[in-house]
């Protein structure tokens, strides 16, 4: 029988489990309210951090091109002769 502590360890590390261990974990989660809550919290965390990340300041197309140009110019001060993506 898997204990709560072992279930929490398996859920949060995401380490690989044998078939038997996976079955025991599933059984434990079916019967154990607190561990069910723990698992739900991890799902909420994943979704919330995903949303937070999606909302962060990303480069606009113009800023992105400027940054790429700057990087390429710093590597090839004399130009690349045949710029990719440019016509």
């Amino acid at each position: 029988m898997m204990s709560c502590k072992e279930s929490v360890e398996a859920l949060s590390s995401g380490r690989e489990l044998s078939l038997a261990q996976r079955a025991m974990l599933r059984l434990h989660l079916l019967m154990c309210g607190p561990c069910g809550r723990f698992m739900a919290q991890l799902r909420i965390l994943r979704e919330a951090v995903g949303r937070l990340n999606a909302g962060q300041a990303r480069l606009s197309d113009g800023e992105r091109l400027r940054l790429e140009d700057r990087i390429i110019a710093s590597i090839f001060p004399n130009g690349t002769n045949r710029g990719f993506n440019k016509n």
Partner: protein
Amino acid sequence: MGGLEITSPEFVEKIREREPAAIERVVRSFTSHLHNAALGMGFDPETAEELAQDVCITFYDKAPGFEGRAHVRTFLFAILNNKAMEKRREYAKMQKHDPIDDVVSARFDKRGHWIGSPISPEEFALSAENAEILRQCVDSLPLSQRSAFMMKEVEGLKGEEICNVLEVSATNLGVLLFRARNRLRECIEGKHLKRK
């Protein structure tokens, strides 16, 4: 030039030879990914641009040694990770002991049963969906834990690729994720309880 697969041996060879068009293609394909990843690690936009540029320059320096065994993306992210660690002066990637391990242990009795139950998902979501609280909690993560968590949960990278980027074993990736998830969970639950 544009027709070659970025993972094809022919393209890898062009990278090794530092063919300008090949290097340029890599820069244009991955700069915004690198920038986003740096933001996800908690760097401000200006520093994120600086990091993206540094990574590309180091990539150019190291290109002759690129063997194509790992995807070029993995190669770039590994450089980014090292630069980020340097910037944060975080040299030890894997601490043998982390205080969060004790915090988690203290949640269970001798037989491994919960001493008190985690708060309900509804209560937990109230805190987690507050952007300010969540940001504070994410910012409290050590960089290696934060990077592992972001790559796994946000970028959706496979475990094997994350291990290559962070240069850790699968077991140690498990330890990093365990600590990241529990540190976030404890932080968010703690802030919820404090607000009551």
